């Protein structure tokens, strides 16, 4: 072993017990993005803040993760870890803590680290560390965006199954003064981000594929119609072309289930009767009329679902007409000011999403975990990101724009047209909602199955009590500056999101339709569930 070591380090004749021990280590290199700009802005202040971050955050985090801070430079640090998992975990902790620290500051004075992590053989001395591995870590840090953690392929291989994060491959990168290109991955602390990323890419691919197929189909059509009968073909092609744009003709044999609809269908009917210009306009009008039909009544699950996604069971939805209502109340500071909001027509789930519905997503490997519990019970212990994964999957599987409701939509739906404290009046009544000291359900049976209590005037169940329900909006401590058009409020610090409804563990105050609470975006809690909404 000693010989190999010597051979690698190129030091012949030295005893293995020499003064420069080599070892394999995970090296973390971090530096502050735009340090000189920050120093220019406010030299003393920045210096103080950086020192404080190093003392309060960087050093304790490294120690907590069993690492060793090797050195700090003016604007950065280098640390080594025995374990790649700990190294990356430590980097994430530092980055996420900084997000919190920056939240209250204007953007130009944010202190953001760029962090690179590499696995390499290094020479360690008391106050410094040397070797290729260190240089690569420093280069990774150099190409990382502020607030990001970039890791090398070596680290990735070690941690990919151990650390639940998203990893986005950035391919092989040539880095300065290193001969071989380095494989680089970006760490996405929450897997949902990765999912979004991947889906975007998939969508682009699918789009390109469908465009190609469309061109081929168009070419074939052109060829078939033009070649055999010159003039008639011209005539016939006119009425044929409109249907190609419609995602219709469900009768056509569809080769690829995914995106079958748009492209090949028009070919078979037209080749079957290319000479008959008379009947053509009728089918082309009919689908158009059919397509227009679902628009005014968005909740009818009939037409668009049949052509795709055979097996996904859709949540039961209620279409709401929309309108204007007074949102908020004067009962709690977070619910002020009361403000008028106009809601567009939309549909919302009659019940919270159930364990059965959630597990279909889990079975499709699109949701993070398989839930245990009764099929009809509401899904619980989901984070906001989990809920978003579900809606993304449902929208994709059904090809319908499922999403989380906005906070305004939720309150509009929960009020059911009333302006009283509760939807049934101003007094608490037993048996109306599943809240603490409001029912005699045994604790062991909680959460009880969805729809066990009375529905509100809009025919919706469990809008208040039961499970807390995530909505799309970022948390804001009151309605100062809130949108009035019913859209979700997604600007500002988005580390926590809004939950509505209150749960079986909260008392009657929380059941009020105006009540609002917040919770960390990526954290699961045993009373948190959600329901879905659908745009028309």
């Amino acid at each position: 072993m000693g010989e190999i070591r010597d051979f690698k380090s190129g030091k012949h004749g030295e005893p293995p017990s020499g003064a420069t021990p080599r070892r394999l280590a995970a090296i973390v290199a971090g530096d502050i993005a735009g340090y000189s700009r920050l120093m220019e802005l406010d030299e003393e202040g920045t210096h103080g803040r950086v020192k404080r971050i190093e003392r309060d955050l960087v050093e304790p985090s490294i120690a907590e993760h069993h690492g060793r801070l090797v050195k700090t430079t003016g604007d950065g640090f280098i640390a080594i870890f025995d374990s790649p998992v700990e190294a990356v975990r430590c980097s994430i902790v530092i980055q996420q803590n900084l997000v919190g620290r920056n939240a209250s500051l204007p953007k130009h004075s944010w202190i953001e680290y760029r962090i690179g992590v590499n696995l390499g053989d290094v020479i360690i001395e008391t106050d410094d560390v040397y070797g290729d591995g260190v240089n690569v870590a420093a280069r990774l840090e150099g190409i990382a965006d502020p607030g990001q953690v970039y890791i090398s392929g070596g680290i990735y291989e070690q941690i990919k199954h151990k650390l639940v994060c998203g990893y986005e491959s950035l391919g092989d990168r040539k880095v300065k003064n290193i001969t071989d290109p380095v494989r680089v991955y970006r760490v996405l602390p929450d897997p949902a981000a990765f999912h979004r990323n991947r889906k975007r890419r998939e969508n682009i691919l699918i789009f390109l594929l469908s465009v190609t197929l469309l061109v081929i189909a168009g070419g074939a059509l052109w060829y078939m119609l033009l070649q055999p009968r010159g003039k008639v073909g011209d005539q016939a092609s006119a009425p044929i072309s409109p249907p190609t744009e419609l995602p219709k003709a469900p009768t056509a044999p569809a080769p690829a289930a995914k995106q079958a609809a748009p492209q090949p269908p028009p070919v078979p009917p037209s080749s079957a009767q290319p000479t008959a210009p008379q009947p053509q306009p009728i089918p082309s009008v009919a689908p158009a009329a059919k397509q227009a039909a679902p628009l005014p009544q968005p909740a009818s699950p009939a037409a668009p679902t049949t052509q795709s996604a055979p097996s996904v069971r859709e949540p039961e939805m209620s279409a709401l007409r929309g309108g204007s209502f007074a949102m908020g109340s004067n009962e709690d500071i977070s619910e002020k000011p009361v403000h008028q909001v106009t809601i567009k027509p939309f549909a919302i789930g009659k019940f919270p999403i159930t364990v059965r519905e959630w597990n279909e997503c889990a079975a499709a490997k699109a949701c993070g975990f398989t839930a245990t519990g009764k099929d009809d019970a509401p899904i619980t212990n989901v984070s906001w990101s989990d809920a978003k994964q579900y809606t993304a999957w449902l929208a994709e599987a059904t090809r319908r724009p499922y999403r989380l409701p906005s906070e305004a939509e939720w309150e509009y739906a929960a009020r059911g047209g009333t302006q009283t404290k509760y939807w049934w009046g101003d007094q608490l009544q037993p048996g109306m909602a599943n809240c603490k000291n409001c029912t005699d359900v045994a604790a062991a049976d909680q959460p009880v199955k969805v729809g066990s209590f009375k529905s509100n005037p809009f025919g919706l169940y469990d809008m208040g009590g039961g499970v807390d329900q995530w909505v799309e909006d970022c948390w804001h401590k009151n309605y100062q500056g809130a949108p009035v058009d019913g859209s979700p409020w997604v600007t500002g610090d988005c580390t926590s999101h809004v939950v509505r409804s209150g749960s079986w563990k909260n008392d009657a105050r929380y059941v009020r339709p105006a009540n609002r609470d917040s919770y960390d975006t990526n954290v699961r809690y045993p009373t948190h569930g959600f329901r879905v909404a659908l745009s028309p």
Partner: protein
Amino acid sequence: MKIARLALLSVALVLLSNSADAQGKPAPKDAVLYFVWPQNGTTIKGAFWCRFGLRNMGVTHAGDNFKNSGHHHLLVNVNEPLNPKEPIPSDKSHLHFGAGQTEARIELPPGKHTLQLVLGDADHYPFDPPLVSEKISVRIK
């Protein structure tokens, strides 16, 4: 070799089964939960940054099941005793910091309030015995 592997496997299994058990994890004997700021009896004007201190244990994200680690919860004006068999409640007086926060901006109406920290495990259960800070009083002007 085989025996060693088996032994390793059984150790891993034991560890795993231990960590799967949600409730009543012991905290290290010397762990201390405390307020870095404010101190007991402080009078504060307006909103303030409340800073949480933890010695001999680590702060992690809720859901991360590592030994000797947990996440902070701040109890505001809570007088009921904590039920160690239940997850720490989540409401307007039980604030959760499951993203691993070690400080928070707190806004309270003028008057006297009590604050207390409780450390929760990966599943939001208190440790056994519960690791809590001293219950402090602050006055908001």
